[in-house]
């Protein structure tokens, strides 16, 4: 290949981020749903707090409806999936028609899940299967390692960010951080899609400390957000 | 025959940095039997690698690309031309017979043409052109700032005011309504500190110049930089650039004088 445009670099990164956001959002909401079944019905307010939001929903049902299927809610799985598709549709040559079709299929299946009478977890299973198939396509059909790695960097950044935001335990966060570092180490030198080393140092310092990121979540989130910011202050656009 | 020394420069300044700046300049005088260039120099600053091609109308196009950030673009030409209008120019194109975006008449301009044509006692293209030029001068007031480079003949005629470009477009429109081929000439004229625009009429065998803004024949005091169906084909400089600039300022100066 060798002729990715600058614009596509960003698109690939955000394709990885949004697709991962769909998946992790679904998984975390399924766990939350389980808690909502028989324990604290106000559990979801904690989830909202992780994103700095207050309860405008009033009921767990309305909350779940909005965070899974609400296209207007920018924290929802449906919203993220549309953004993933938006990025994917201009990357057909890089990721293949096959992979793109799985994103379309995931959107269709999410709509079906919304109308389904089955339990939430069961009705969302086909969506998750489809996302796994999408990743299968990326691993199998994208020959260019650099392209593949940009997508995977986006995926790893997103996974880590959500783990930190949702206050997952330190062990898990460390594992996801290691995964991110492995992807970062594969980025060739002298390529415009370099990570920002200053931000990486901040992450290493905090995440590898004894308390992991406890109490310093905001610093980690800021550093993660800036990890792929352009170093020279121009050139790349932000999504 | 007259020997003219000419110079022309424009300074384009932006209020912020611009980059990826593509430009196309039509600033090399047209070489023709009536206009022979004996010396020519051109300079562009900041330095840009350029290439020359010749467009469909016979103009030399100097194109370039400045990728790096810059805040100005200056270019300058100078040289010596021998002008001899007794030598016929015969580079005809059929498209010169047809109206363009700039010259397409509206009802008012068509009416004015019909009225003028009825009054005209000449049947030859040049005679008609001279007569129409006189009629246009009676109708249109020379005034700067009323029209822009986008104004069409019909719009300028409606405003009853304009500059050389508008006079030329109105005359082109009227001649084409008679089916007479004619073209726009852009360049330098004596005693004019900027660029000038006028008309050439096809008399059946060759091109003859006429300057409707001054209502007189275009004689050997005129230097043609570019020619085409209308102003749109002749723009001396055109450019596209990127950046956060909000304003651009263009300063033009030109000089044309007879030398021994």
């Amino acid at each position, binding site marked *: 290949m*060798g*002729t*990715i*445009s*600058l*614009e*596509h*670099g960003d698109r690939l990164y955000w394709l990885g981020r949004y697709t991962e956001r769909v998946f992790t959002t679904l998984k975390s909401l399924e766990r939350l749903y389980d808690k909502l079944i028989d324990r604290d019905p106000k559990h979801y307010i904690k989830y909202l707090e992780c994103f700095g939001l207050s309860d405008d929903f009033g009921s767990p049902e309305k909350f779940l409806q909005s965070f899974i299927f609400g296209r207007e809610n920018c924290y929802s799985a449906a919203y993220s999936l549309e953004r993933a598709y*938006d990025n994917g*549709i*201009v990357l*057909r*040559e890089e990721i*293949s*028609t096959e992979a*793109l*079709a799985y994103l*379309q*299929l995931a959107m*269709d299946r999410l709509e079906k899940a919304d109308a389904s009478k089955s339990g939430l977890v069961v009705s969302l299973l086909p969506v998750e299967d489809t996302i796994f198939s999408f990743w299968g396509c990326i691993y199998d059909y994208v020959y260019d390692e650099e392209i593949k790695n940009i997508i995977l960097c986006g995926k790893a950044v997103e996974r880590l960010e959500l783990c930190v935001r949702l206050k997952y335990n330190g062990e898990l966060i460390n594992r996801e951080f290691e995964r991110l570092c492995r992807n970062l180490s594969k980025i060739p030198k*002298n*390529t*415009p*899609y370099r990570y920002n080393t200053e931000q990486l140092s901040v992450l290493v310092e905090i995440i590898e400390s004894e308390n992991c990121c406890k109490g310093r979540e905001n610093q980690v989130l800021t550093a993660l957000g800036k990890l792929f910011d352009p170093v020279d202050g121009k050139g790349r656009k932000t999504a | 025959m007259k020997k003219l020394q000419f110079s022309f420069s424009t300074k384009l300044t932006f209020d912020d940095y611009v980059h*990826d700046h*593509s*430009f*196309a300049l039509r600033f090399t005088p047209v070489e023709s039997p009536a206009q022979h260039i004996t010396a020519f120099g051109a300079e562009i600053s900041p330095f840009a*690698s350029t*290439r020359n*091609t010749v*467009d*469909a*109308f016979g103009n030399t*196009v100097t*194109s370039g*690309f400045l*990728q790096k950030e810059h805040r100005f673009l200056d270019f300058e030409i100078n040289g010596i031309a021998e002008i001899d209008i007794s030598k016929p120019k015969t580079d005809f*194109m*059929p*498209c010169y*017979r*047809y109206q363009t975006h700039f010259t397409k008449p509206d009802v008012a301009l068509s009416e004015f043409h019909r009225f003028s044509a009825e009054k005209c006692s000449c049947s030859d293209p040049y005679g008609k052109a001279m007569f129409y030029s006189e009629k246009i001068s009676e109708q249109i007031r020379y005034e700067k700032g009323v029209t822009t480079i986008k104004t069409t003949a019909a719009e300028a005629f409606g405003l009853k005011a304009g500059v050389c470009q508008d006079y030329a477009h109105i005359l082109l429109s009227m001649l084409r309504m008679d089916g007479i081929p004619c073209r726009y000439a852009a360049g330098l004229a004596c005693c004019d500190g900027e660029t000038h625009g006028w008309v050439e009429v096809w008399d059946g065998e060759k091109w003859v110049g006429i300057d409707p803004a001054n209502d007189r024949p275009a004689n050997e005091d005129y230097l043609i930089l570019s020619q085409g*169906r209308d102003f749109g*084909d002749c723009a001396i400089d*055109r*450019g*596209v650039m990127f950046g956060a600039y909000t304003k651009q300022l263009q300063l033009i100066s030109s000089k044309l004088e007879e030398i021994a």
Partner: protein
Amino acid sequence: MTIADTAVCRSRPVTPVADAGEINELLRRYGVKFGIYKNGQFKEQLFPFDPIPRIIPAEDFKGIEKGLIQRVDALNRFLYDIYHEKNIINDGIVPENFVYISSGYLPQCEGITPPNKIYSHISGIDLVQGKGKEWYILEDNLRIPSGASYPLIARELTRAASPAAFSGNDIIDNRNYAKLLKETMDFANRGGINAILTPGRYNAAYFEHSYLAELTGAALVQNDELFVEDNVLYQKTYSGGKTKIGALYRRISDEYLDPLTFEPTSLIGIPNLMEAYRSGNVAIINALGNGVADDKGIYYFVPKMIKYYLGEEPILKNAPTYLPFYNEDREYVLKNLEKLVIKDVAEAGGYGVVFGRDLDEKALEDFRQTIIREPRRFIAQEVIDFLDLPILENGGEVMRKADLRAFVLSGEKTKVWASGLTRFSRNPDSFVVNSSQGGGFKDTWVLSR
């Protein structure tokens, strides 16, 4: 040309290839959509697919193929002539003002010779079949004809959904389109990569642009990643370098292609592309200025062009056409307006088409006056009694008007793609089949025997 109603055609049962719902579901999944703007909002719509294929027997196709090659070759000769010697005008075959008043004629292209003198590399020729099975040419599209991707992906999916329909049925595989397109681009290429220029994902045909890029291995590009330096067209690459583009299959209209030569306010063009093109450093597919040859007014003259340039009798007929510009034709048109179809030469996409029979007496009279005032603006045609095709609707078959857009590719040789886009009208009373007006499409099977 009258193409015989062959036994092959009759003996073959015309049945749906697959369940319409299943195929349309697959098409949706594979993103086979076109974008439209409705009330200022961008929406993507499925292009409805009808599972009953149009079948063209081998004998029929041979005739169509020969006729199309002849026509496109003559049109390419015409374009070269118009932008150079203009012999066809000087010899009085085509009146001068039909050429120069045409909005598709671009004087800026005078004297430019595209690689191999090919102007129309990808021609979309619209045909209809009359009740007597004879084919008529309705329209030539030599600028940016779209639609090849739809039957292409539909075939891929219908073969997967109902392999039995294809097994042993002697249907020519149409999936060679990408190969034909790539050969065409490679032949025109002036050194460098092939690229497909799209206005972006909100363009109606974006699916096609990206799908063809993927299949041909061409880079899918937008103007903001391209620039012209030293009269060479480059793509900015990810690593900060530049890659030379040798052939640009552009899916943007002429007037927006270079803001320094054409429409100065164009935001989707490439400044100085015209200089790179004139210098012979990049092939533009299709060439600029082709609009002069697919103008509805020039259409009338295509059979004359075939005789003039090739010395051959036209194999395919035009629909009977009258030019109000000629006195004799004008009289006929004014007298018979109520039975004719009138087309505004400046309009496209099914707009500006008026059927005389739909007008009342006053509207007819107004229209007559318009024609008298602006004779050059219109052409008039006899309404062809179309051969209707069966369409599946609510489980039953109904008959609808349909046309066929055939794709002719001009590279080292002129070739006709053994398939095409069959579009049909979903409205029983309508003759207009354009996708922008709610029509659907069918696969087109060309048989090998």
